[in-house]
């Protein structure tokens, strides 16, 4: 009797001790609505994109978040480069840097750097094969940056480059000169049109010579360099095992030169404003190549001066490519990285990201932001049409998705794989030609100011030597960037 009592007590103690160790039974960590997991997200969305993102975050917090115990806070960190810097600062624990967030948006190159530090969580354990198969395979593939089967980037939205045209002014130009839309399809056509537009606008004020206007500008020069080369059969960064071989191909670069540098120094192209949509706003250009996400920034009016404006319409076309080039198109858009923390937080992060990319929601974000959805199901015109209708039929967005889907159908997506110092090399591509153009254009204007004849001065720059100098400068800069970073 007494012995039984003692046994009972001992058993109770052991049971109590064990109860502490018991718990998690399922595969996935348990969330608790009474003890919510807080998720901080850093992104680079602004304006309409941020609005669309925030609206979905709020919806999540009020529904699934409330049910499962997840609170998402999203913060814009400026643009994609600022975001990358902040994440890197946080990752490297620089003085004054904030703590690294639970989720952040990043291009593969940035993600690659953070992953090297060992801060990225592998998302794949939280996703079933079936869940993964819903996404466009190439988007998922892009997230497998470690090359060990792990998934480090969750695709949430993608953008393509599109050609946006101030239709009001284009129509005037076209009817006056007979310019053909057909020329909008190729880089060579754009160059031709630009010259024609410059001459047309110059002629509008016969009393003033050389006041022609630029026709075209492009936002992302790195994309021009990468995809231009690719279309011409050259992979400028040939990546293998995280190491890139740099291919500087003079022949290909010459065509890029001829269709950017040359029209630029003539004043047919412009890179005014932070984004070319600014230049379109002020009427400095009437056509631009920019991200599909930038459609939301395309102005609805032209600001002639500080007081006067006139309304304009927009037309959207697939991005022009090199005549006879291979059918490649740029696909970009950061994915979301989840930082290493505890299973519960990582799991909660994937719950949010999965929710965010469920087809209809993904489509809703797309029509609000100009980004393309990432699931195969949502990347269909019916689904996008339905989302457009549901969001109030934004005409600009309808044009955008029309052009974007046309472009996707006709081309293969191309994105260089990430590699060490990829960010730095990309920066070189972004700036090299732009800086060359700006410097030479300034020099030309200065020379003309000093009394030079415009055509002669320009001819002095439009030379093989000048091209050769740029190519070697570019080569050197790329080599340096790929070594030091």
């Amino acid at each position, binding site marked *: 009797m*007494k*012995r039984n*009592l*003692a046994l009972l*007590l*001992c058993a*109770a*103690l052991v049971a*109590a001790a064990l109860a502490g160790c018991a718990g998690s039974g399922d595969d996935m960590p348990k969330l608790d*609505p*009474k*003890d*919510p*997991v*807080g*998720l*901080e997200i850093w992104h680079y969305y*602004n*304006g*309409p994109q*941020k*609005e669309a993102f925030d609206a979905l975050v*709020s919806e999540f*917090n*009020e529904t699934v978040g*409330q049910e499962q115990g997840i*609170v*998402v*806070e999203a*913060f*814009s*960190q*400026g643009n994609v480069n*600022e975001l990358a*810097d902040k994440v890197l600062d946080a990752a490297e624990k620089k003085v*004054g840097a*904030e*703590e690294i967030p639970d989720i952040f948006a990043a291009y593969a190159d940035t993600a690659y750097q953070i992953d090297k530090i060992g801060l990225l969580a592998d998302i794949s354990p939280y996703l079933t094969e079936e869940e993964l198969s819903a996404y466009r395979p190439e988007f998922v593939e892009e997230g497998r940056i470690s090359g060990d089967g792990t998934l480090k980037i969750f695709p949430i939205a993608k953008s393509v480059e599109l050609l946006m045209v101030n239709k009001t002014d284009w129509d005037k130009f076209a009817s006056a000169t007979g310019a053909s839309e057909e020329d909008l399809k190729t880089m060579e056509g754009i160059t031709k049109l630009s010259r024609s537009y410059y001459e047309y606008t110059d002629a509008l004020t016969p009393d003033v010579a050389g006041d022609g206007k630029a026709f075209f500008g492009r936002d992302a020069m790195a994309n021009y360099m990468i995809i231009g080369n690719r279309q011409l059969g050259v992979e400028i960064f040939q990546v293998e095992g995280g190491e890139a071989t740099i291919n500087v191909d003079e022949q290909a670069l010459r065509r890029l030169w001829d269709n950017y540098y040359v029209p630029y120094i003539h004043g047919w192209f412009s890179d005014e*404003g*932070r*984004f070319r*949509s*600014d230049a379109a*706003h*002020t009427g400095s250009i009437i056509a631009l190549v920019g991200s599909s996400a930038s459609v939301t*920034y395309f102005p609805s009016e032209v*600001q002639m*001066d*500080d*007081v006067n404006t006139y309304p304009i319409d927009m037309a959207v076309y697939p991005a022009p490519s090199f005549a006879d080039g291979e059918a490649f198109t740029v696909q970009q858009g950061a994915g979301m990285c989840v930082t290493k923390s505890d299973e519960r937080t990582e799991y909660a992060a994937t719950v949010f990201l999965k929710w965010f990319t469920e087809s209809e929601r993904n489509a809703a974000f797309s029509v609000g932001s100009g980004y393309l959805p990432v699931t195969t199901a949502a990347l269909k015109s019916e689904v996008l049409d339905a989302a457009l209708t549901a969001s109030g039929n934004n005409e600009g967005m309808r044009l955008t998705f029309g052009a974007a889907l046309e472009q996707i159908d006709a081309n293969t997506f191309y994105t260089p794989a990430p590699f060490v110092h990829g960010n730095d090399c990309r920066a070189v591509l972004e700036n090299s030609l732009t800086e060359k153009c700006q410097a030479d254009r300034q020099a030309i204007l200065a020379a003309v100011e000093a009394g030079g004849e415009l055509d002669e001065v320009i001819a002095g720059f439009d030379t093989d030597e000048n091209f050769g100098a740029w190519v070697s400068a570019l080569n050197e800069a790329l080599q340096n960037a790929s070594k030091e970073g």
Partner: protein
Amino acid sequence: MRKKGKVWSFQMRITLFLLIMMLMESLLFVGFLVWGNVLTQFDQNASDVFVEEISNRAAYLKTDMIQRWGQLDWTQSTVEETVNAYLEERGISAEELVPGSEDTTALLGRLAPDLVSTLRRNTINGVFVVFHGNGGDPSQPQENTVKGGIYIRDTDPTANSDSNADLSLRYGPHDLVNQLGIAMDINWNPAVTVQQDSEWYYSALQAVARYPYATRSQLGHWAPMHTLVGDQDPKIITYTQPLVDEAGVPYGVLGMELTETYLRRSLPYSELPGERNSSSYVLAYSDGGDGYQIMSVAGPLSTWLFGEEKTFRLAEAPEREPLYRALPAEGGPEEKVYSYVQELQLYDANSPFEEEHWYLVGMSRGEDLFAYTAQVRQRSIALLLVAMASGVALSLLVGVYFSRPINKISAAIRDLDPNKPVELEPTNIREIDELARTITTVSQEITESLSRTNRIIDTVSAPIAVFQFNQEVGRLSCSSRFYSILGLPEPDEPLTGKEFEALLADLGKHVDQDMGDGETLILRLPDHYKPGETRWVRFQRLRNGNYVLGILIDVTDSREKLARIEFERDHDTLTGLSNRLAFRKHMAELARREDPGVCAVLMMDLDNLKSVNDTYGHEYGDEYIRGAANVLRRFAGDRCFPARISGDEFYIAFSGYSSREEIEECITRFRAELIATDVRLPQGQLRRLRASAGVAWYPDDTLRLEDLVHYADFAMYQAKHSSKGSLCYFDIKSYNRDSVMVYDNAELDRIIETAAVRFVFQPIVSCRDGSTLGYECLMRPCSPVFTSPEDLLQIARIQSKLHHIEVLTWLEGTAAFLALPWRDEGARLFLNSIPSQSLSPEEVGEYERRFPGMFSQTVLELIESDEGNTEYTEAKIRRGKKTGMMIALDDFGSGYSNESLLLELHPHFVKIDMDVIRGIDLDFDRQTVFRGIAESCHSMGSKVIAEGVETLDQLRMVISLGADYIQGFYIGRPAEAPEPVPHEICNQLRAAWKDLRAEEPQGSR
């Protein structure tokens, strides 16, 4: 009587004492925690730290807002100076600073560098100057006006750039865009749009008129969270001071902005208690209205709590003063969240905006805030539990330790084997050892008396065992045959009380028969020693207080005998089919049934048996019979009851059918199978089975089931006489007509009247020495019609003339016996009496007259009647007793005679049927049957006669199995004048007896 106090064990006393001690200590500890205010103090500390943290953070924030971000005094004077100088230089008034004008653009161009440096110095998100221009009275705000101005933004003030590349121009003339190298904001506009409710613009401007003597900074206003016209983001708060000319007239504003995102970075919520995900700082604003407006939020707790609400409310928390409880938004989580509110006091007393309040609110979940207390409480409880548990365990151990010597002694006594002397180990405690010695002495005496009893029982060689079980202490003592009688292996250790009780319960499952009082049982047990066999044990129980006494007797032998007898009674040894007796019982049982259904009896007589017997010998005759029996057996079932009646006669009783057709169908199948059956004869010959059969129907032919058999007999005879191997159904008309005609009654009458029979005699000799016990008298009809005595009897029965045959047997048989030319001296006459017949007293008188004294020399052979007329049998027995006539039970083992008759008659002789004897030397089953019968007979004092012995091997076998006398072809065939038994055979008998029986004691084995 002395009052009996509660009995406590020694161990219990010690344990309880220690337990109470420990409980008191625990109470003291709990008391210290609860009443010593320790936990409350912990809570208070946590609360204090929380408050201090928030107060400090608020102080920092206030310093940042006023001293750093909102410090515009230097810029103010610079801007005002520059504007004054420009206006003077251009000779224009401030009202002309309208959007689009060249003056405005030029002036803003001059101001821009100072503004940029202010932006950098104050590390703010934006800086702006807006001219009121010709906007009229600022106290009358107009809707949607455009004003000249510049608004420069920096999304990340912490990152400084050498160029202005990180800045953007939200508002400002187009020309400045290129001039300043500042990029256009996405929503860039050349002129500033101001709306009626643009607090960021009007508040400070309007305050100038109301507070003419206030300093610029006193007129400065913090505008709560808003966005600029056309912006979706960023959400900003602004600080605006008026630009005032020397006359004290305001002409514009200077201000700066902070974005929500940037502000958030000044609210490091993780310094508050709780995990990173369970606290929040909220920068809140109140203009005296209800609740707090959220300006900026850091940390997820508030989002979790308030969702997308822009305002929130606090409730007093008296128990946690000075903290408040943050009330969740409708539908939000009902978690206890505590907050502390610290006002920032951005405005001086009596300044224009003293009604507006800015607060820093810190929030943590109660669970996290007071986690330490909870932890202490939890650990204390755990500690207390552990302490209590170990205390209890210790108390028990101590109790056990002190009481062990005593418990050991008492356990030793309890577990004593009463059959052995007691040995108690010394405990080395004097008092206890003294007690132990006394116990030892007493117990030795008890042990001896007990073992004496058991020894007596063991010496009795009978299969008897006794036991005694003490229920209180669970001790068993038993005599040595206890286990063997139960058929159990002897256990190594004596059974414990529990084991014994389990054994009793198990025995309870094997009760075969309850003798009535519930205490005397017959158990049927599996035998451990001979697997597969069964033991019968008579189990008698006696309860006496705490004792159970029991007697076990092995009754397996007598039970087995009974079972065997029951089987033999009902079965035919040759074929294993039911015998005549069983068939009769079956018919009687049918007759008792209320609704026997459609019934039929088929009588079948094998054709050709005689020719098989004669040609190939009895062995093959038996084979022929068995062949038929095998077919019959296949049909046996609930509704079909086959039986062998005699030699080649079989009956099948069908009952319980719903229609005659069903039975007919069954009969057809049976016949088909029968005639398709081959019997193997010597040299591989095959012989087809052939039989004649008759069938009588119930209720078609008769409503008396008793008649069925009789009618079936008749039908069979008809069949037999029509052609062999045929089947006849009973027909009442032909019965009425032919029963007389078919059987030649004239011939029967002739036989009876002229005594046209002769008698043959077969010797019965003693196994011991070959001396002749007597002769069996067998009647043979002298008739061309009736070739066999069976035929004669059959017809006589049908003609109801059996009595005449009986009389004939007695009178003529005895006469023939006495007329024998030679017979052994003292040999007896064995007469076969018809069971259903008995001599009348007159006839008995006549017999005594003719053969005086002959009764005492006669042995009456009886078989049990299939007619069930036992009254005649009884009369014969009475007569036999009176006259000294001996009785022999004939055909024993064939189905005609059975054990009950054996018990009833106590016959002098039992004649074991030749069916049993045939092939007995090779057949183990027959040997078993024979031995069983012989043993039974011997045990009742009857002598055993083996009939039909045909070979020396059979002879030796039956002798070895217990036969006392032998009859059969081997000894001598029936003959009208039997010869003396040859010497050779007498010698064989003597030798066999000597070999097989002499060494054994006479009588039953």
